[in-house]
């Protein structure tokens, strides 16, 4: 009975989280949703006599893999939320049809199979003295070769990640002196404030002006603008203030 309740609760949670993963626009939310699904699954593993896997699921997936995902998200830019407008004609429709069809087919297959009540793992683990020793026995005897190969794979993958993300420096690293020279040679004598710092102009949150003096909507940083609106901190220039408000309004639509 306990298992049934657990299952139904977690099934609902995991399916909704999965749907959330697919539907949410922000990649960070997606990552969180995925985390939820993984945790739910970890519990389900535990319920199904796989305590070791449950632990590994939490450690490896929610611990390592998810962290990696979030890390890359940060690297790529958290603010970039996806547009969910489909650009390939018919892709979404057919994807849903195929997905639903596939799910129905799998469901039918499962339904078709006449299943006896589960045998349970008690018999398999009893002799070894528990789930973990039983798994260990199998992994280090029968599947030792696969295990070694898997470890080689992991090392290779680690190397690959390093090689792929490594950027070969083609030129000498510019010194501060060289950078300063370059800046002045191009005519920009004013030292502009760094991004993310509030400053009267040139600032990240300050909209840029187009050649005709109007405000470029595109130049408004949505994240900072939202904070500006929430905290009612507007620049003195009414034109700029208006632009920031508009950007936030559009964002919330």
């Amino acid at each position: 009975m306990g298992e049934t309740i657990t299952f139904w609760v977690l099934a609902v949670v995991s399916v909704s989280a999965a749907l959330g993963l697919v539907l949410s626009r922000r990649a960070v939310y997606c990552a969180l949703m995925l985390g939820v699904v993984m945790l739910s699954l970890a519990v389900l593993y535990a319920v199904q006599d796989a305590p070791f896997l449950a632990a590994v699921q939490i450690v490896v997936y929610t611990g390592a893999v998810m962290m990696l995902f979030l890390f890359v998200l940060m690297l790529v830019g958290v603010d970039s939320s996806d547009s969910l407008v489909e650009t390939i004609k018919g892709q979404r429709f057919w994807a849903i049809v195929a997905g639903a069809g596939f799910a129905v087919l799998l469901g039918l297959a499962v339904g078709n199979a006449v299943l006896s009540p589960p045998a349970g793992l008690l018999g398999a683990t009893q002799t070894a003295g528990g789930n973990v020793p039983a798994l260990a026995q199998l992994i280090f005897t029968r599947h030792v070769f696969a295990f070694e190969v898997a470890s080689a794979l992991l090392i290779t993958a680690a190397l690959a990640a390093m090689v792929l993300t490594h950027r070969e420096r083609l030129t000498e690293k510019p010194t501060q002196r060289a950078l300063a020279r370059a800046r002045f040679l191009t005519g920009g004598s004013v030292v502009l404030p760094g991004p993310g710092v509030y400053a009267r102009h040139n600032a990240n949150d300050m909209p840029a002006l187009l050649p005709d003096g109007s405000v470029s909507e595109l130049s408004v940083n949505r994240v900072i603008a939202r904070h500006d609106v929430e905290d009612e901190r507007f620049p003195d220039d009414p034109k700029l203030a208006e632009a920031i408000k508009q950007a936030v309004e559009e964002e919330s639509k």
Partner: protein
Amino acid sequence: MEPAEKIIQHAGGVIGVSWLMIALPLLGAAILLLGGRRTDRWGHLLGVAMSLASFVVAVLAFVELIGLPEAQRRRGVELFQFIPGMVDMGVLIDPLSISFALLITGVGSLIHIYSIGYMSHDPARRRFFAYLNLFVAAMLLLVLADNYVGLYVGWEGVGLASYLLIGFWQQKPSAATAAQKAFIVNRVGDFGLAIGIFVIWTTFGSVAYGPVFGAAGGADQGVLTVIGLLLLLGACGKSAQVPLQSWLLDAMEGPTPVSALIHAATMVTAGVYLVVRSGAIFELAPTAQLVVTIVGVVTLLAGAIIGTAKDDIKKGLAGSTMSQIGYMMLAAGLGPAGYAFAIAHLITHGFFKANLFLGAGSIMHAMNDEVDMRKYGGLRKFLPVTFATFFIGYLAIIGFPLLSGYFTKDGIIETAMHHSAILGWLAVVGAGITGFYMSRMVFMTFFGEKRWADDAHPHESPAVMTWPLIILSVGSIFLGGYLILGNTFMQFLAPAVGRPAELPVFHFFSVPGLATLALVAVGAAFAWMKYGRAQVPVVAPRGSFLTTFARRDLYGDAINESLFMRPGQWATRFAVFFDNRGIDGLVNGLAAMIGGTSGRLRRIQTGFARSYALSILFGAAVVAGALLLVGNL
């Protein structure tokens, strides 16, 4: 009919080496053609020598042949295997072939000699003699071969020589076209001859004369008729008989000795030779024989009518040649009774027509190569020898009593009359027309006032040209009487072609003979009134419908053009179009279709990984579905 004698294999003697008759001129031609410019100086002499040598061999073979008893006068000489199992090449010397050989080499040599003078100013004289020698060799092969394939080889060989000689002045487009036309029209005839040979082979399993004629009696009459008609088609092509007559008039583009030798005396008579030689087949196929006579009569009238309207002296003579060969063909279609007359007329015609043509050549030689008789006139004073010989030829051809043509043509008319009155009377009418157009020619050329251009200075030709004329005129006077009177020639030919049940007797005063003479006289008188006494306009008057009809060669060319040439051109254009657009278009279209399809299919590869993933999912779904289905079945 008596069956022809068997062929007896011969070895030794002159007959044993009679192939030299063919080989010598062939060698001459080869030397002259391969020798190039080196032989320019003495090439013409070599040509004449080879022709004369051939003549000598022919005479010696003739002497040897008549030394044999009559029943053994068909001598075969085996030469070599041409196509193993099918054709053994050999020479057949019998009265028929030796008559031809004598005519070809004799008249041929005279024309060779004449050509020395006639072609003396031509830079390509050597080549001319090479071609003449080639012709003589091919013609001799035609008549001497002992089988149909050998005859066919010679048959096409003379066609080649004729092509080369008509187109001798090939830089003239008209000459080149005429040569081409002659060859192609001849090929149509050859088509018939070839099929005829095929039928002979499939019927008898042999193409040699002896075996074929020996077995002819056992063959179905229908098959024999087919063979006869096919051979006749070949004969029509070579002998310019209706409906394949159109090339002969154009062939006059060649040098005049060529017209004399090939297109009057020898080659064009090959059709008559073929019909007479195949007598054993024709005699068993009366329908074919009837068609032969009809073709003969139609052509003798058509040729004569064409002859009446021609102002070009050579074309006039060409029309007359057609007409005379029509007589021979008529006679050849009459069976053994006519063969002797056909061949006799062929021989006498060879003499007087060569005489006339060479005379015409002599006139042209004197008149800056002018051929339009309206620009002649009164030439008898300037060209006395030519006039004399031409006049003898003229008298011979119109059948003036006691000259050659009188005996041979009368013989034909009488035999035809005996056979069928309609044929006979039509032949008589033809003779009358002959009287008209030949008289017209003589009057326009030699009588009346001079109408030639100021820069023409008529002069008699050199001796090398006049002596052949004189020799030919002697033949034109006496040969006919010698051959016909007492049936000399018929008796001589009998071993080869058989003889009729009763020998004809020559009547000097028969009804057809007198009628012929009367009609000829009327024709000549009419010609005198129009062209002798009256002024001949220099430019031809328009003339009536009939005149135009005759001038345009009875619309023969027009018929050929509208029936064959234009549809042919249309078919050619269509075929080329069909090949380029139809077949090749189909192929290229297929290629373009495949290219286009793959170009469109290529678009499926959008490069979007998600599209590919979608198709993978679909595939997976299909596989899953299939598994489910199979599992449930």
